[in-house]
């Protein structure tokens, strides 16, 4: 099956499933048919008709067209909803499902008789609409002209049913209107029928967007005001009604025995739902910890007994199952990184056309799996790096030819797993990073001294400094206010880091090293003074117990000689400005990899624990040095150390110390 046909079949199946859902809803609300279900059903066949037409399935298109007509009549109140009607549509959903399953290259099924059947059914006596008072007298024509025929019909119906019509007006900032509007919409839908949502810009300040929500409800205007907290105007008064009797909720009507078995066996799940499951697992882990504590206390009181042993055993089983459950959910969250690569590919192809630099794109390791959340988090940084490469890194075809390079430049996207991390590389064979230019800029910005000698690798590091750009002009794409500093910051926030390698005239490679997942992580609990902190185990390689006098000092900065390599040290007490302990024996926690390796000096190492990192949120969000907070043990909350930020700071200080002494 070709991929476009596959796309068609899977969308068509989804639509039919949806249609069936709506139909079941209708069946439940048959005495007062749910307008949402009716409209939803109509839209299903409308869309189905559209896509079958586009993909050349004429028979299917005609058949869904006639069903769409029937449903249009129903939703506009021209045809009654009866058990008969519902069964009729059920039958046709079955028929179409079978047609789609058996669809060969082009469908040649004769649908004439089926269409006739629908047409005949539709011509059975219909109840004519009685004329109501003209709507324009009741409702502002400015609003009426924006309503679709269906929305207008719903408005009429609701007025006929003596419901009040309200206009709810809100203004939201452009940047976050969708979440706020969605929240409001959900609230409003509980109050009655949301007929229409009208976006507006009239009389709305720049940077904001206004919405008018047209709501039909049998609740009073004060109630609506209170429930929504918005400006509410009653534009058509309704009849005072006592709250309607509670409908019998669950009707366990037997569903018609239809075989709507889908050909594909996947479901789409909102990532938030998975987050919720993980959160719950995290909470259960805490309960598990509590049981362990109780077990210990019981042993203290009563000594060992078979009952306590039972608790112990059961708790162990609980732990095993929890780990399993956690693994399963984490597995569900994994997506192949190819999803991101294909998005990047689109941008690269489109943008390279736009700026006239032909690109050959090579992709490796697109099957490497990564947590969906992290995948989304690295899209922007990757996008930025790619755009930078296109803008600044890659030369124009003429330049390339004159340098003896192939006219078409190559960008390589590569992903591979490395321990608990995934490395994503963006490689281009462009002109590389101009180190002299960085040096000039750094001198101009007084970051370094004119005569200072600095290694190239340190100069390259400067591109990650906020506000450091060697480009004077800002191009449309890469100059959207995001710098490499934001890239680094973003990666740091998910516990990853970015590295760059370059050779003038030849290439630039950015490598992003990111954790595979960050939902539940193993952490090491450590103590500094009287404070407990959590260190994510993924960023730690070892811990060493040493005597205080083993610490050496280079240029006034503490280092420890780790297997003949000087390891820059950072006392956590100094970083967080906490009380300094005088203990003789201290721990060094070695964090980071390769050249970015440092030792954190802590007073004590407590134990390992599974933690769920929660954001500090709001006021504390920009607090430096913390990745978040987590609950451990007996309702104790500890701060999670942002190891990347500390590595950054430590290396900076140590560099400064060496630099100033050269």
């Amino acid at each position, binding site marked *: 099956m070709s991929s*476009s046909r596959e*796309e*068609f079949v899977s*969308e068509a199946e989804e639509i039919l499933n949806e249609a069936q859902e709506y139909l079941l809803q209708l069946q439940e609300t048959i005495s007062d048919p749910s307008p949402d279900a009716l409209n939803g059903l109509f*839209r299903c066949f*409308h*869309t189905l*008709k*559209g*896509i079958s*037409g*586009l*993909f050349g399935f004429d028979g299917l*298109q005609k058949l869904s*067209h006639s069903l*769409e*007509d029937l449903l*249009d009549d129903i939703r506009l109140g021209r045809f009654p909803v009866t058990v008969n009607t519902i069964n009729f549509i059920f039958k046709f959903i079955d028929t179409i499902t079978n047609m789609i399953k058996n669809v060969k290259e082009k469908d040649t099924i004769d649908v004439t008789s089926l269409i006739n059947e629908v047409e005949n059914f539709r011509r059975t006596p219909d109840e004519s609409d009685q004329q109501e008072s003209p709507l324009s007298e009741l409702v502002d024509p400015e609003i009426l*002209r*924006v*309503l*679709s*025929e269906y*929305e207008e019909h719903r408005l009429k119906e609701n007025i006929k049913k003596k419901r009040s019509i309200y206009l709810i007006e809100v203004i939201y900032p*452009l940047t976050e*209107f*969708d979440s706020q*509007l969605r929240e409001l*919409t959900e609230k409003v839908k509980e109050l009655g029928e949301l007929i*229409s*949502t*009208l*976006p*507006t*810009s*009239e009389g709305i300040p720049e940077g904001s*967007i206004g919405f008018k929500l047209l709501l039909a409800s049998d609740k009073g205007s004060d109630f609506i005001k209170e429930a929504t907290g918005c400006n509410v105007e009653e534009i058509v008064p309704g009849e005072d009604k006592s709250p309607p009797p509670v409908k019998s909720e669950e009707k366990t009507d037997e569903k018609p025995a239809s075989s709507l078995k889908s050909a594909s066996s996947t479901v789409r799940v909102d990532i938030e739902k998975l987050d919720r499951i993980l959160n719950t697992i995290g909470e259960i882990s805490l309960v598990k910890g509590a049981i362990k504590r109780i077990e210990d206390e019981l042993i203290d009181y009563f000594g060992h007994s078979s009952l306590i042993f039972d608790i112990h055993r059961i708790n162990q089983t609980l732990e095993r199952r929890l780990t399993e459950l956690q693994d399963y959910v984490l597995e569900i969250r994994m997506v192949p990184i190819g999803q991101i690569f294909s998005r990047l590919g689109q941008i690269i192809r*489109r943008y390279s*056309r*736009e700026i*006239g630099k032909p690109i050959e794109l090579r992709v490796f390791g697109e099957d490497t799996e990564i947590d969906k959340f992290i995948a989304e988090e690295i899209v922007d940084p990757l996008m930025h790096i790619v755009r930078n490469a296109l803008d600044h890194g890659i030369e124009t075809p003429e330049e390339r030819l004159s340098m003896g390079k192939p006219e078409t430049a190559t960008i390589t996207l590569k992903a591979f797993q490395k321990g608990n991390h995934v490395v994503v590389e963006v490689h281009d064979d462009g002109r590389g990073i101009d180190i002299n230019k960085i040096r000039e800029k750094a001198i101009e910005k007084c970051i370094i001294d004119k005569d200072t000698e600095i290694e190239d690798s340190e100069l390259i590091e400067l591109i990650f400094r906020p506000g450091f750009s060697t480009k004077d002009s800002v191009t449309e794409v890469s100059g959207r206010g995001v710098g490499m500093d934001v890239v680094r910051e973003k990666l740091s926030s998910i516990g990853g880091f970015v590295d760059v390698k370059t050779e003038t005239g030849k290439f630039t490679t950015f490598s992003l090293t990111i954790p595979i997942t960050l939902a539940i992580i193993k952490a090491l609990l450590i103590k500094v003074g009287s404070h407990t902190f959590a260190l994510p185990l993924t960023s730690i390689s070892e811990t060493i117990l040493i005597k205080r006098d083993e610490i050496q000092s280079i240029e006034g900065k503490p280092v420890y000689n780790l297997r003949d390599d000087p390891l820059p040290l950072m006392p956590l007490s100094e970083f967080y400005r906490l009380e300094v302990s005088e203990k003789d024996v201290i721990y060094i926690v070695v964090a980071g990899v390769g050249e970015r390796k440092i030792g954190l000096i802590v007073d004590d190492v407590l134990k390992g624990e599974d933690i769920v990192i929660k954001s500090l949120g709001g006021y504390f969000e920009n607090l430096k040095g913390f990745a978040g907070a987590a609950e451990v043990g007996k309702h104790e909350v500890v701060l999670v150390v942002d190891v990347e930020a500390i590595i950054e700071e430590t290396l900076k200080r140590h560099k400064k110390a060496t630099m100033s002494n050269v």
Partner: protein
Amino acid sequence: MKRNIKVLIVEDSTSTRSMMRSIVEDLGEEYYVYEAGNGFEALKLLPTDNFDLIITDINMPDINGLELINFVKTTPKYKHIPLIIVSTEKTEDDIKRGLALGAEAYITKPFEPDRFQETIQKVLKV
């Protein structure tokens, strides 16, 4: 190099959308297509770029095409952007409303690629 033409396609069916994208992109290298799956997404995309053309379906959940047209045509910043309605003849009445709200043209589904392209070029006057 020719001037870029940025086209925003608002349509809730993914397969229809990608088909419309390829038809628009076939018009030439200067065409860039942005996709929105509903009125919401379109409202979010609008301030991010200068669009030269909006092609919108009418029948969409929450914020429908008419509401989008009205928003575009009553906002001084966007009012110059030409709009093409893509809908079925079924919703003839809605198409009329859309035109009354200021949409420049309409095309009914299912459409022939040629006819679709002609309409776009006519509206863009290219």
